[in-house]
Each structure stands twice: as structure tokens, then as C-alpha cells.
């Protein structure tokens, strides 16, 4: 579905490339997590998938990005956004500024796509319910808390039902319960067959839903594989990525001889519970 073919990119004012010779493919329907330290190029990567690089941001590119069989650089942005949805890292910038209420803000993209009115109302209501922001429907999108605004920004893209969804830290300002709801929504989309690229720092949640995790570092892929392997990699901390507390606890336990050398380190709560039960001789030991 998504293919990067030796793709590099430098910002117009950047002194060094933000993305370097990326080669990778995300098959249709995959949920691909992206992690990495600040400045690694995660947001730049997201912009490149959605076509904002090169169409909107200028700068220099080499190689190509192909999404849904179309070369991004050769496809006009309006055609691309019918298939690819991008949720920006800073929700404040996603608000259109031309709508008076959250409800209208959510409908903005659908209006542009010419979706019939009844269908539009149905979809907007569904997103309001899914993200539990019905109570905000008639508020101005500017008179919201940061987290509320982030939910609106996310909803404004979800409502367009793109077949490829690129999410740049969509839960960074959400409370734990709200984050959980967003992860549930993402999981549901994944089940429905949407191809998803999810930049995220909440590794313990990412581990539960991702098929695969990429670690970006200095604009390059430093690691790529299933979450259980990638997120337990001992090099993550050196690269500026905090593993989960579950992994950290198991690693420390192993150093102190409390966790068998040959047992994988857990990255999710379930795996940690099973693992620690086993080492303490609990019921689940095998």
C-alpha cells in the first residue's frame, strides 16, 4: 500500500536531511507504529506519506513515495487526500478557522468531498459518539482545552474515512482514559482493513495494537520488526526511546537473577503479568 523507494528529504532551511534513503513497504491493512527520539524525523515521515512533502512544504526530495499505486510527487494533493488522511501533531493547527462549531468543523472535509448532507450528518454524529465529544458539538473549536481540541482534530480526519490513515501522536495531550478510547478506535479501524501509520510515544499501548514497529533515528530506520522484539530491544534507551515500565522491570529483574536469561522481556501488561507469575511460581508458570 505504501512504498518508500530510497526516499530522502531536506527542509528548505535544514542543514542536514531530515529523512535519509528510506526503503520500506507497508502492506495494505497493516498497522505500523513509528517511534523514535525527538527530531528523528517522525513528523517529516508522516508529512511525506500524506504528500505534504513535496506538495506543500518545499525542500528537496530524492527517490519516491508510492501510496496506493500512485507516486505521491506526481499526484495532485486533492486526489491524494481522498485516500490518505493525516492528523497533525499540533491539533491547534488542524482547526480550519472557518467554522463556528465543532460539528461544522468535523463536517468541513466532507463538504469539500461533496458527501450528501444526510450521510454527512450520520458520519459526524458517529465520530462525535466514538470519541465521546457529543457534549462539545455546539462549542467553538477554539474554546476548548488542548485535549478536547486534539480529539476534534482527530475526528475531523476520521470522519473522512481514508483508506490510509497517518496519525502523528494523536493522543499526546489526552488523558489516560481518552487515550484508551482513541486506541480502541484505531484498533477498530485496523480491523476494518484501514492501513495505519501511527507515530506514538505510549509504547505499552502501541505494543498491544501494532503489527509492526519502526524505530526512526536521524532520519533513518534503525530497527523494524514486530513490537514484542523491537520494543524490548536493549538499544532503545541509548537511542532516546523509553521502553515500557514492564520491560524495564523485567530487565532489572533479570540483572538481579530474578528473570530467566532465556525468557523474552515483556512489552505489554498481559505479557508482564504472565511472565512475572511464571517467575514467582504463580499459576501460569509453564
Amino acid at each position, binding site marked *: 500500500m505504501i512504498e518508500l523507494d530510497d526516499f530522502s528529504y531536506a527542509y528548505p532551511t535544514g542543514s542536514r536531511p531530515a529523512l535519509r534513503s528510506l526503503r520500506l513497504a507497508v502492506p495494505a491493512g497493516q498497522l505500523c507504529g513509528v517511534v523514535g527520539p525527538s527530531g528523528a524525523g517522525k513528523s517529516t515521515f508522516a*508529512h511525506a506519506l*500524506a504528500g*505534504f512533502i513535496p*506538495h*506543500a*512544504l518545499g525542500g528537496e526530495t530524492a527517490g519516491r513515495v508510492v501510496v496506493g499505486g500512485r507516486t505521491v510527487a506526481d499526484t*495532485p*494533493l*486533492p486526489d491524494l*487526500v*481522498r485516500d490518505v*488522511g*493525516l492528523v*497533525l501533531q*499540533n491539533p491547534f*493547527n*488542524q*482547526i*480550519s*478557522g*472557518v*467554522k*463556528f462549531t465543532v*460539528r*461544522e468543523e468535523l*463536517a*468541513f*472535509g*466532507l*463538504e*469539500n*468531498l*461533496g*458527501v*450528501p*448532507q444526510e450521510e*454527512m*450528518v450520520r458520519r*459526524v454524529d458517529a465520530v462525535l459518539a466514538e470519541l465521546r465529544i457529543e457534549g462539545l458539538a455546539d462549542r*467553538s473549536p*477554539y474554546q476548548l482545552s488542548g485535549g478536547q481540541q486534539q480529539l476534534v482534530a482527530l475526528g*475531523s*480526519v476520521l470522519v*473522512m474515512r481514508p483508506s490510509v490513515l497517518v496519525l502523528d501522536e494523536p493522543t499526546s495531550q489526552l488523558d489516560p482514559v481518552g487515550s484508551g478510547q482513541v486506541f480502541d478506535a484505531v484498533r477498530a479501524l485496523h480491523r476494518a482493513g484501514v492501513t495505519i501509520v501511527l507515530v506514538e510515544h505510549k509504547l505499552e499501548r502501541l505494543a498491544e495494537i501494532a503489527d509492526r514497529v519502526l524505530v526512526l533515528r536521524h532520519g533513518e530506520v534503525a530497527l523494524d520488526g514486530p513490537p514484542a522484539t523491537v520494543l524490548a530491544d536493549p538499544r532503545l534507551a541509548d537511542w532516546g526511546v523509553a521502553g515500557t515500565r514492564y520491560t524495564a522491570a523485567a530487565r532489572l529483574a533479570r540483572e538481579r537473577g530474578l528473570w530467566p536469561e532465556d525468557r523474552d522481556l515483556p512489552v505489554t501488561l498481559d505479557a508482564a503479568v504472565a511472565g512475572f507469575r511464571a517467575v514467582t511460581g504463580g499459576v501460569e508458570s509453564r
Partner: protein
Amino acid sequence: MTVGFYQHRESSVHRLNPLTKLTLAVAVVIAAFAVPLTWWPAALFLVVLVPAVLAARVPARFAALTVKFVGPLLVAVFLVQGLFFPGEGAELARLGPISVKAEGLAFAAQTATRLLVLIGAFLFLLLTTHPGVLMNAMVQRGLPPNISYVVSATLQIVPAFRERAQHILRAQQARGMATGGGLRRRIGVLLPLIGPLALGALTEVEERAVAMEARAFGATGRRTSLMPVPDTTAQRLARWGLAAFAAATIVANALGVFA
């Protein structure tokens, strides 16, 4: 970004189709400039704009903004036109090389009231019309969305800058920069604002353009609307009437009716 000068009220004027208000504003301005009678622009202002603003329940804001925008212009017009009017005419008073002539004053009054109508008409439109609704109405009439956006964004530029300026000012105060006080102080405060303002506003505009695109803003083809802007036959007729009225003033002037 903000929603501009827009003041939300429950009023029949607010419920009008934005195009009707736009037509009204443009027609009144054309009429004010087409007819060379001294009392005419003032009459338009009092008979058309003032009642419209009262009906829209925004008189206080309208008055405040009108004074703010027209005030300095009025002073300039009277100084230049009133005191230095070059034409012939009876001299009312003289002060060295400066002579105050009746014609000069009349001309100044006319220019000033025309400006009053110009600014008043657009303030009326902006105060009672949400820029998004105006944009919607224009798109519905088949205007390309980009043009509609430019129009509605232009209407918002001043408030957007004002908003950004407020943000910056607040951020600067939060780090100990004192404001207020005398004029020099105020100018001193504004200077550090200018750079960040231009830059911040530009970056913001760029990011927002990206965000708009992400929501298919540039898509071609038919558009729909969640809340179609209501229009009525009466309003459609009124718009034609207003256009005819504006055209009539131009024609009448060309034919020398007012000469």
C-alpha cells in the same frame, strides 16, 4: 485564528443570506460614491446603515470600531480638503497662507461621509456575518473555493494578526515584560512584536494551509454543505433590486441628473 469581527446575536439580520448583506454593502458604497450631492452619503448612512446595525443588535461594537477606523481618516480629510482646498470659493476664515473656504468644507464633509459609508458598510457585513458562512454561501453560488477562501481569509487577516499579537504579548508578559504606561513605552513594546508577528503569522498560515488541504480543501467537483445557507425568493429579489439601485445611481450621474 478567530472568527474575525463577527459578533454572534440572534437577529433577523444575522439570519440573512450573507450574499444579501454583501450586496447591500457593495450597493450602498457604490451609491455613496456615484452621487455627488453633499448630503447624500450621510443620508445613506443614517437611513440604511444605522437602522441595519440597530436591527442586528450590534450598535456599540459598530460605533466603537467606526470611530476607531474613521476617526483618524476624518481628521486627515478635514485638514487636507478643508484647509487646503485648491479651488475657488468664498473664504470663511484665513490664517496666514491657510484659507478656509465653504467649498472646501463641503467637499471635506462629502469625502468624510463617503468614507464613513464605505467603512460602515463593511463593518456591518463583518460584524453580522460569520466568515465561514460567507465562504459557504459563496461556494454554494459556484465561486471556486480557493477564491472564496481568499476572500474570507482576507476578511480575517486583521483579527488574526490581532489575535497573534495578543498571544505574543501574553507570552512576553508572562516572562516579565511590562506593558502599559506612556506612548513611548507603548511603541517600545510594539517593536519587539513586529518581527515575531510577521513570522509567526506566516508560519501559522502555512501550517493551516497544509491542514486545510488535509481536509480536501483543494478538491474539485461538487461540494455539499452541512448547514446549507438559507436563501429566499424575497432575498434574491432584494439583491437584484439593490444591484439595480446601484446601477441607477451610476447611470443617473453619467446622464448629469445631479449636475
